[in-house]
């Protein structure tokens, strides 16, 4: 019974090489590796992995098909619950979700569920005849609008389209994908090779995506409902506004939000000299924060030629970033100044960043988040020389939708008030993802999008 096969390692680009390019870090499994890894699954009677997945993919079922070499069947199993498997296989925090619950993980290494999901999706897109289409119900004549083409919106739109709804997605930027396109870098999620293909699959279901429309400016939700004939609206507008620390020197030249830095690089492709948008990582960049976005910004700055340092106020244990991202960052040569917090950004006579004054921290009592509260160590101030500072300390939802929609309530943090099914204070408006919870993960947003799709279906059918 005991599983003798060790977890199949995934091949990756050499850290020294990849620190200078934007190609994907992980190559993923090939057929043989995937089948071998899949054979490790115990096919538990009560699969805990499924309960750990926010969209409840039937994990043992798809893994069994992979082990048998029936990759199309595996893809069909995943497609029932997840419209973005190539994305989720790459960016989900599997270690705290499906893989975190895997029984094999108790005594050894869990099954590499994420890598297998990625393999199944990539295999589909690599086929000449294209991916196998899921079943789509006959058109039911109902129109639903989805605001935002990020993970929440795409998941909601996919389900509704499969059930026969006519779904129109409105996207403010010029490309669909939301945070997947502006936030997550090419080296973690290739845009043309992976993301675009996955979004194409969503449009093949009959979903229309209209870019360059800012709901709340170009038009608004009330107009969509009152004049354009939409029976329900799903708001999946994410958490797009960057936070700053409000310390002196934050408006010096050379201080950027991670959003600005990553949007220039990812959405606007500033790393490619063919593209016109400028970007500056400088010679020595400090990235403030410890989440996945901070890792992405630090590794992007490194690839643009900067010596790159993460400055985080707690210890390594508390880094909110995925372990794999921290590991990759370290391999590539990112420095970590832990238990360190900026107190002031210092500028030269031209108003450009020349350093960052920091203070050392120690961990105190746990706070309401359960993590130890960082406390300043008096007199421990010191200066880190740098010419670029990238603030990556979180984001909050854009208030535009809430302020331009009649009767749609939001809370003090600017998040739209919605229940677990996505129902808001307006009966025909549903919401989910970061717009409701504040910044979280891709897969949680997708889960919220799917729940809202179900609630929208029930609402329209009950009318």
């Amino acid at each position, binding site marked *: 019974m005991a599983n003798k096969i060790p977890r199949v390692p995934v091949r990756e680009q050499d850290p020294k090489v990849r620190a200078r390019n934007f190609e994907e870090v992980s190559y993923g499994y090939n057929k043989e590796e995937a089948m071998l890894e899949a054979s490790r699954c115990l096919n538990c009677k009560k699969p805990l992995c499924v309960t750990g997945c926010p969209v409840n993919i039937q994990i043992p079922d798809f893994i069994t098909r992979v082990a048998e070499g029936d990759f199309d069947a595996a893809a069909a199993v995943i497609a029932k619950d997840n419209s973005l498997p190539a994305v989720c296989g790459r960016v989900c925090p599997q270690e705290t979700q499906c893989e975190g619950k895997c029984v094999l993980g108790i005594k050894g290494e869990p099954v590499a569920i994420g890598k297998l999901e990625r393999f199944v999706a990539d295999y589909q897109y690599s086929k000449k005849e294209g991916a196998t289409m899921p079943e789509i119900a006959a058109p039911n004549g109902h129109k639903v609008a989805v605001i935002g083409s990020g993970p929440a919106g795409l998941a909601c739109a996919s389900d509704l389209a499969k059930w026969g709804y006519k779904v129109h997605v409105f996207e*403010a*930027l*010029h490309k669909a994908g939301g945070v997947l396109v*502006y936030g997550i870098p090419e080296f973690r999620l290739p845009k043309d090779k992976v993301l675009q293909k996955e979004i194409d699959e969503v449009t093949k279901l009959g979903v229309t995506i209209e*870019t*360059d*429309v*800012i709901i709340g*400016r*170009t*038009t608004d939700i009330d107009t969509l409902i009152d004049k354009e004939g939409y029976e329900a609206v799903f708001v999946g507008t994410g958490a*797009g*506004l*960057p936070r*700053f620390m*409000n310390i002196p020197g*934050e*408006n010096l*030249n*050379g201080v*950027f*939000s991670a*959003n*600005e830095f990553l*949007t*220039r690089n990812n*959405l*606007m*492709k500033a790393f490619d*000299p*063919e*593209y*016109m*948008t*400028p*970007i*500056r990582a400088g010679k020595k960049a400090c990235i403030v924060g410890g989440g996945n976005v901070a890792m992405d910004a630090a590794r992007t700055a490194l690839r643009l030629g900067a010596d790159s340092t993460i400055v985080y106020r707690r210890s390594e244990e508390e880094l909110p970033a995925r372990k794999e991202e921290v590991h990759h960052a370290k391999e590539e040569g990112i420095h970590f100044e832990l238990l360190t917090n900026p107190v002031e950004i210092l500028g030269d006579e*031209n*108003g450009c960043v020349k350093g960052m004054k920091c203070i050392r921290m120690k961990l105190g009592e746990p706070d309401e988040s359960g993590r130890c509260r960082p406390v300043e160590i008096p007199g421990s101030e010191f200066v880190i020389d740098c010419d670029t500072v990238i603030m990556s300390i979180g984001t909050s939802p*854009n208030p*535009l939708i809430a302020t331009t929609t009649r009767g749609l309530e939001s809370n003090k943090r600017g998040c739209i008030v919605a229940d677990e099914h996505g129902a808001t204070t307006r009966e025909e408006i549903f919401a989910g993802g970061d717009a409701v919870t504040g910044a979280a993960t891709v897969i949680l947003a997708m889960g919220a999008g799917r729940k809202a799709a179900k609630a929208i279906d029930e609402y329209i059918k009950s009318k």
Partner: protein
Amino acid sequence: MFEILEKTMLNPTIAKIVIKAPRIAKAALPGQFLIIRDDEQGERIPLTISDSDPVKGTVTVVIQLIGASSHKMVEQFEAGDSYANVVGPLGNPSDFVHMSPEELKEHRYVFIAGGLGTAPVYPQAKWLYEHGVAVDVIIGARMKELLIYTEELASVCDNLYLCTDDGSVGFKGVGTAKLEALAAEGKKYTRCVAIGPMIMMKFASLTCQKLNIPIMVSMNSLMVDGTGMCGACRVSVGGQTKFSCVDGPEFDGALIDWDEAMRRSRQYQPEEAASMERYGK
């Protein structure tokens, strides 16, 4: 894709471009801006709306040839071609669109327009003029040949004052000097709106503070998305950090940290110079 219906050079470095964008044309109000990305490789360029026609479904912007992107947008696109993306209207409309008719009646507006900023004064002056508000407009340029939008503005204001640095037409001197001269003549204004280069808006703000006229300015900060996401357009207003794109673009000129704003507008100067070199200028 957004079709270019008309392209006219207003002077050697300023082009007027009329674009088919029905949704934006229907929603646009004075003071708002839009963002154009000309093609796949293009930057997202914020431009204040200079006119909109909800019936024809068109919006008008003026573009000054400054960097590689603006050169490319103007030189490589003709009427009949299309820009890849046009999005808007962005930002808040000018505050007067929310004023009651009674409140509007109380006001005497003076606009100070400089260079490229002359064009976006037009929809504001037009709106006020059509709402029966007294409007004077001062336009400044280095010389006669560089003045733009004079005819359009003449049709939507009570008095139009032209100013040139060299005196080739109208008042010899800058727009703010003209405003001081008008004030000295006894002209009374209750509100000023200045749109133009930052240095001009800074001095207009100083002059208005001296003359005790409340002043609004339209900030043309650097930005990427224009929806509040990037924070590149941070501007200090009354000691608080605001985003031009979502909190503005119009702010009380007396409260702006102008030196910081001007420094921040030069943030990507070395990169822009390199880009110009690649573009072959």
